[in-house]
């Protein structure tokens, strides 16, 4: 009886086994012949399609193509159905096979035949130790192989340059103060320490004009000066150039093009005519000069004109054209790269790049849309802060790691004026919102706690404010000048003049220098009453802010760079 069961079970097992093997073979063959999805349209079909392009009206060709295409598609789905059905059959066959074998096994249970001898465990243990040791050696070999492969790994190439520079390679505070390294001078607040500037000049007549040199390409960026080198950049739709002028003679020492920087977006750039293609002012730290252009090109040159590094930051999503100038903190280039029409676009960011290599040190996303204001690195006495202005926040960041320190909701609209710091307060302004005086040094949202005062009349939309610590001056584009008390925010005087202003004012000693769009510099008294002390004409229009150094003023007009100083 039992034998019958055993034999039956074994027969079932054999049949199921053969069946399973057959199904497996069919499935394997099916899989082998399966057409990958791509060839559904490639191969024969692709050839026929090429033919069809040459003879677009050939009906016979079309019929042939359609027939082959249908065959291919039907075959594809048929094979897929076969694979799925076959898998089920295979599973079923294997299950029956296994069950039958297990059933049969119970009739062939072999009784154990122990020999009662207990082996000495030592040889087995020794064998085990040798085997483990050999395994250990093999694993060590594998690890060594990994080490050898790792030696040539690509990642080492860029790992090395990720290390921060070992030596601090940036100018001292004294050196910075003696030059004009960034937009609106050392400190970025439009306060010139230079003495001995002339009281008047005339560009057409040449009075007190030391030299005047044509700038090859136009640009709205203002001059920056270090030692005897003056830097400017210029660009049009197709060309971008960086210039270095000799501060003593005005000679163009070198001009270098900025091209061939890869950018994913190759579509043509549109900028507003007023902004131009080279609006951001350059920076220089005594060894390098960095320029930024409206298409996102960023280039760094040394003082001899050799290009140290250059990269494209991506085409900015900026409807008027990139306007924020560069600034720097120690050896880090600071770039306010705000983009997008709404904060939710999430495109805006503040970046810090290493000045020597251009490598990004940190990047902090900003919850704001596009802005045209320049960031300002200030020293509150206890810490350094990067003050940025945009809609609707004034945000301060830690320059070491880019983390946000505080923010105040005081602005709105298209923010172009840049913030200044004087008398322990940050002044930020935009037309349609406020002129705000904020105490720095706070944490988090300080709108209710650190805003000293707000003022809302005749606010500028382009011109940045200036302050000597006691008084704050703001300039509305169409001629209204206002002076307020820095501590209380009360208006001290207000005056409307007939001129237009786009250039930012500068505090020079006890006077305020303010240039209108015709290139005429207005000298105002720095006292508590409005008094115009005089004017000096450049001889051509200008929107740029002047640079003051060693008793000289460098002004970029629409066509020429002027150096103004006492002759003789």
């Amino acid at each position: 009886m039992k034998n019958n069961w055993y034999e039956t079970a074994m027969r079932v097992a054999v049949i199921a086994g053969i069946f399973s093997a057959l199904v497996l073979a069919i499935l394997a063959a099916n899989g082998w012949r399966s057409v990958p999805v791509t060839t559904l349209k490639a191969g024969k079909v692709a050839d026929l399609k090429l033919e069809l392009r040459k003879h677009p009206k050939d009906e016979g060709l079309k019929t042939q193509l359609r027939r082959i295409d249908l065959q291919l598609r039907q075959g594809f789905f048929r094979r897929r159905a076969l694979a799925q059905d076959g898998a089920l059959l295979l599973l079923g066959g294997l299950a029956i096979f296994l069950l039958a074998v297990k059933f049969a096994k119970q009739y062939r249970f072999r009784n154990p035949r122990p020999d009662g001898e207990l082996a000495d465990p030592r040889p087995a243990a020794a064998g085990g130790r040798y085997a483990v040791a050999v395994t250990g050696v093999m694993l060590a070999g594998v690890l060594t192989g990994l080490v050898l492969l790792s030696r040539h790994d690509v990642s080492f190439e860029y790992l090395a340059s990720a290390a921060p520079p070992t030596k601090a390679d940036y100018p001292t505070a004294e050196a910075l103060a003696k030059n004009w390294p960034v937009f609106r001078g050392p400190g970025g607040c439009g306060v010139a320490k230079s003495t001995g500037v002339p009281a008047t000049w005339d560009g057409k007549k040449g009075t007190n004009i030391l030299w005047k040199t044509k700038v090859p390409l136009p640009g709205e960026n203002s001059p920056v000066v270090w030692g005897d080198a003056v830097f400017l950049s210029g660009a049009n739709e197709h060309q971008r150039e960086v210039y270095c002028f000799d501060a003593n003679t005005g000679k163009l020492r070198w001009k270098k093009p900025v091209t061939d920087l890869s950018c994913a977006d190759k579509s043509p750039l549109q900028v507003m005519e007023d902004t131009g293609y080279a609006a951001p002012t350059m920076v220089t730290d005594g060894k390098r000069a960095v320029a930024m252009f409206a298409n996102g090109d960023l280039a760094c040159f040394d003082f001899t004109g050799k290009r140290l590094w250059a990269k494209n930051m991506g085409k900015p999503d900026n409807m008027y054209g990139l306007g924020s100038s560069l600034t720097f903190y120690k050896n880090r280039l600071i770039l306010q790269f705000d983009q997008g029409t709404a904060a939710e676009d999430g495109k805006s960011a503040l970046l810090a790049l290493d000045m020597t290599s251009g490598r990004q040190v940190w990047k902090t996303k900003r919850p704001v849309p596009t802005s045209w204001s320049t960031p300002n690195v200030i020293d509150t006495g206890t810490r350094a802060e990067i003050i940025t202005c945009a809609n609707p926040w004034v945000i301060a960041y830690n320059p070491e790691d880019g983390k946000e320190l505080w923010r105040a909701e005081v602005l709105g609209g298209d923010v172009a004026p840049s913030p200044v710091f004087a008398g322990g307060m940050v002044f930020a302004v935009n037309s349609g919102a406020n002129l705000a005086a904020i105490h720095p040094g706070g944490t988090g949202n300080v709108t209710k706690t650190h805003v000293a005062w707000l003022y809302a009349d005749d606010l500028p939309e382009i011109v940045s404010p200036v302050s000597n610590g006691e008084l704050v001056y703001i300039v509305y584009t169409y001629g209204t000048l206002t002076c307020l008390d820095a501590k209380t925010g009360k208006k001290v005087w207000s005056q409307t003049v007939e001129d237009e202003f786009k250039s930012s004012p500068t505090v020079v000693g006890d006077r305020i220098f303010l240039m209108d769009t015709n290139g005429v510099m207005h000298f105002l008294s720095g006292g508590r009453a409005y008094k115009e002390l005089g004017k000096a004409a450049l001889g051509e229009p200008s929107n740029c802010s002047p640079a003051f150094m060693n008793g000289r003023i460098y002004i970029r007009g629409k066509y020429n760079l002027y150096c103004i100083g006492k002759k003789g």
Partner: protein
Amino acid sequence: MKRFYPVYCWLLLILPTLAFGEERFPPPEYESTYRPPITQAPAPRAEWLAYLDIAVLAAALALAGYLTLKRRSRRGVFALTAFTIAYFGFFRHGCVCPVGSIQNVALAIGQPQYALPIVVAAFFLLPLVAALFVGRAFCAGVCPLGAAQDVVLLRPMKVPAWLEQALGVLPYIYLGVAVLFAATGSAFLVCRYDPFISIYRMSGAPLLLTITVVMLAIGTVVGRPYCRFLCPYGVLLRWLSPFARWRVSIAPKQCVQCHLCKDACPFGAIRIPTPAENPGGRREGKGRLVLYLLLLPVFLAVGGTLGYWGGAVLSGQHMTVRQANRVWLEEHGKVKGTTLESDAFHRHGQSLDELLQAATAIRRQFDFGGLLLGGWIGLVIGLKLVFLSIRRRRTDYEADPAACLACGRCYRFCPEEHAPAEVLEKIG
């Protein structure tokens, strides 16, 4: 107006465009009553069903412990195995399983932004907790991978002791490597190379199907090859099972050293008694033991150093590092052409700086991870040598608490199992 732009088409082909779907054509204004259909979004399996799986797992673990230890029923365990294949295997497609959950835990530890789902945490924890009480009952009838191997075992052969020791190192290595790649967010190796998952999915890539066939074929003659020589989760169970509250014992009451169960275990988990005399003397063994204990830090150091220096090539498993390497090579003109990864990079317009920074951070993780992995391998080898130098005196036939999979096959070999109650009482 017909919306047919023959000329404009060509212009669009010429002008490169941001290929992320800007709305180039305004929404249609229908004159008829046509309304566009709604995009269908079929829901996934209901979340509460996943919690039901946890309950089923807990019940199955309890049942496995009961069947193995209390009822001592091989048939019962087999029936549970069949249920596991049906439910955890084919119904749930073998995923998520406790073996793979190690990687999720590692990922949660290594990457702070990953939140470990409760179900995965439960699948990781429950069999380990069960091991503290009923030993490796999970392996017996609840693990779908073990079940697949269990049912194909037809004619088990004995693996020589030295080979078993050598292969026994592999699960530790696999655990270390899997944890490294999971914690860095590079890959889930255990899932990718799971030999039995293609059975439960009933489909798979050719390589994986081949591995499945090979493993099943080996599994017909070698008992549970994956469980014994590869399973990383088994490493954790091995550590906990010796502390179990209730252990598998071959003899229900008292071993009488009849030797009948000597070759009963197809998985080599029976520890046989040692001879009465202590051959060789004690000093020989002690010297060796001390030597291996002293060598342990050496193994750790060597392994750790090799692992640290070998981390770079392993980091290529991470997609970001791979992408960064490729883009860097292309930017510096060392390779021609592009790959899908570098194309994706260029298309997104990400800055190379950011990519290289991200890749650098991961590479640093691999330096540290490689150090840990190398040290771990050194530690495993060293400790295995130490344990193989310790001699234990045994009088009874015992189930190795760490290795016994609680399958219950050995019970029928013991005469006590079949003895009538009165005889048992006399013994016990």
